[in-house]
């Protein structure tokens, strides 16, 4: 009895060892997929824009980095073609800036409301609604911007209040709608960190004779600041990368302008429209897509690194 049972034990051990090996390998494969994809994307971006592979030239071998960064026009199709990133960058900054001005304060305020003021019942109604807002496809937001915000809000406001003409495609309505779109993200991420502030801190605040507003603004928000900043940066990254809304509502004319009621073009919308257009593979127009994408990649990566830095720097200032 003893030897055979010993044998079956070791057989099981072998089987388990193989099974563990399979599990380990497949989990590791899944974990490395994203790493490989990121590496591949960086490889493609760099090879098409900075260093050419084989006979083909890279974008920056045809267009100098200096003119890419300083030219004030983006017009690849005309004549020699002009490849200044500034108009696209301006479009992106306008939209992201307006979106941030709208989305960040409203998102934070609703997070504070949900966590500090709302009764459980109210929160039970509002939170699911915010999730619905987060689940709406961006193309719907785009049409909301073009057919509701622009004609009903932006145009009357620009014409009656400011006395200027607003283009049907304009950075303002796109920015506002992207701002609305990032509200749920800011709210849910900020609310998580705000709720994580220990109850004891709130009680201490109330016990010292603070109003709810004092507790929210002087204790809770400062204690949750690092997480709130991280949620802001993630939301800004999201606004930077937003494509569909800006394609529909902001337009496709790269323009370096101080007037947000004009049509513009963002980096993302430019990439999308160029990729759909008739830029022939191997042409400089085609490779300009990669240069723009590379620029966008650097900006969003910088934002992510910065938000990681902020998170690590200020993490768990309370215990």
């Amino acid at each position: 009895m003893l030897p055979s049972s010993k044998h079956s034990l070791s057989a099981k051990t072998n089987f388990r060892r193989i099974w563990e090996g399979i599990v380990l390998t497949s989990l590791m494969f899944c974990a490395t997929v994203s790493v490989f994809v990121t590496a591949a994307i960086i490889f493609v971006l760099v090879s098409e824009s900075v260093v050419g592979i084989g006979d083909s030239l890279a974008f920056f071998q045809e267009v100098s980095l200096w003119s890419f960064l300083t030219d004030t026009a983006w017009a690849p199709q005309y004549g020699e073609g002009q490849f200044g990133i500034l108009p696209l960058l301006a479009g992106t900054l306008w939209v992201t800036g307006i979106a941030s001005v709208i989305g960040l304060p409203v998102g934070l305020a609703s997070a504070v409301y949900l966590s500090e003021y709302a009764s459980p019942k109210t929160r039970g109604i509002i939170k699911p609604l915010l999730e619905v807002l987060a689940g709406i496809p961006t193309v719907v937001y785009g049409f909301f911007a073009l057919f509701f915000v622009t004609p009903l809000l932006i145009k009357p406001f620009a014409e009656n209040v400011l006395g200027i003409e607003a283009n049907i495609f304009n950075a303002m309505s796109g920015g506002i709608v992207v701002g609305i779109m990032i509200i749920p993200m800011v709210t849910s991420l900020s609310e998580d960190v705000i709720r994580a502030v220990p109850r004891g801190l709130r009680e201490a605040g109330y016990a010292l004779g603070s109003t709810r507003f004092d507790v929210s603004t002087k204790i809770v928000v400062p204690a949750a600041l690092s997480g709130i900043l991280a949620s802001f940066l993630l939301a800004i990254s999201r606004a930077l990368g937003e494509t569909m809304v800006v394609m529909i509502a902001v337009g496709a004319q790269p323009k370096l302008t101080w007037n947000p009621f004009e049509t513009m073009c963002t980096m993302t919308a430019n990439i999308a429209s160029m990729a759909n257009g008739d830029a022939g593979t191997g042409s400089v127009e085609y490779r300009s897509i990669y240069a723009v994408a590379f620029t966008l990649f650097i900006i969003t990566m910088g934002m992510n690194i910065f938000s990681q830095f902020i998170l690590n720097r200020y993490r768990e200032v309370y215990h």
Partner: protein
Amino acid sequence: MNLNPSENLIDTATENLPGPAVSEKPGSPELATKIETRDLNFFYGPMQALFGISIKIAERSVTALIGPSGCGKSTFLRTINRMNDIIEGTRITGTVYLENESIYDPQVDVVELRKKVGMVFQKSNPFPKTIFDNVAYGPRVTGIKNKNELEEIVERSLKQSAIWDEVKDRLNSSALALSGGQQQRLCIARTLATNPEVILMDEPASALDPGSTSRIEDLIYKLKQEYTIVIVTHNMQQAARVSDSTAFFYQGELIEFGLTETLFRSPREKKTEDYITGRFG
């Protein structure tokens, strides 16, 4: 009864007192009533946590609330500064008087009440700010902006809570760098800075080592010269050491209330005796 005879409300409540009146306290017969509750019932939703609590707490004395976990002593403590208000679904009947004022009256400003009735919690909870900003928090909320005035208040409060010498050179470093006992004394200083009349303490030393505990106890002894202190404690020796009167709570009821010495030496109630001799709880 030495209690202010002009207050007829107190006379009628005297019969309800389950224990000997506060005024029997030897050596200090002149202490007036600071806090009085009458037929206080408290509910968490459908669950009743306090049953008809009537008690008179003398000013400038230490009153200890003892009893097994869940007996309602912390709940009772938190009715005195209306901290239970911030918990959803709580309800109260009966009255709590701070001197002559019924603190649950609709016109009472709870923010003002909490400035008069400070509270120190079981777990030290300094704000993640500097030591200075922690103590200056209360005065700032009240609207004091003058830097000299704030500095004065901070120094006075830190001295009162016997932590000034330890922190005077690092007022601008984080309060979280302090040890547990120092944090708790800082929290006491923070409470003193709002200039309260009453200080409620919810097991202020239960998370501290013996050395820090005895410092807190010394501090309590000192503070009762000026303040009315109500302290919840699980530690019988602590109650015996620091308090003048002791109230024993059991299952939401006030079983016995009297001078600490009397209550510990010759309790009237069987339950009190069982509890203080360690037979349950």
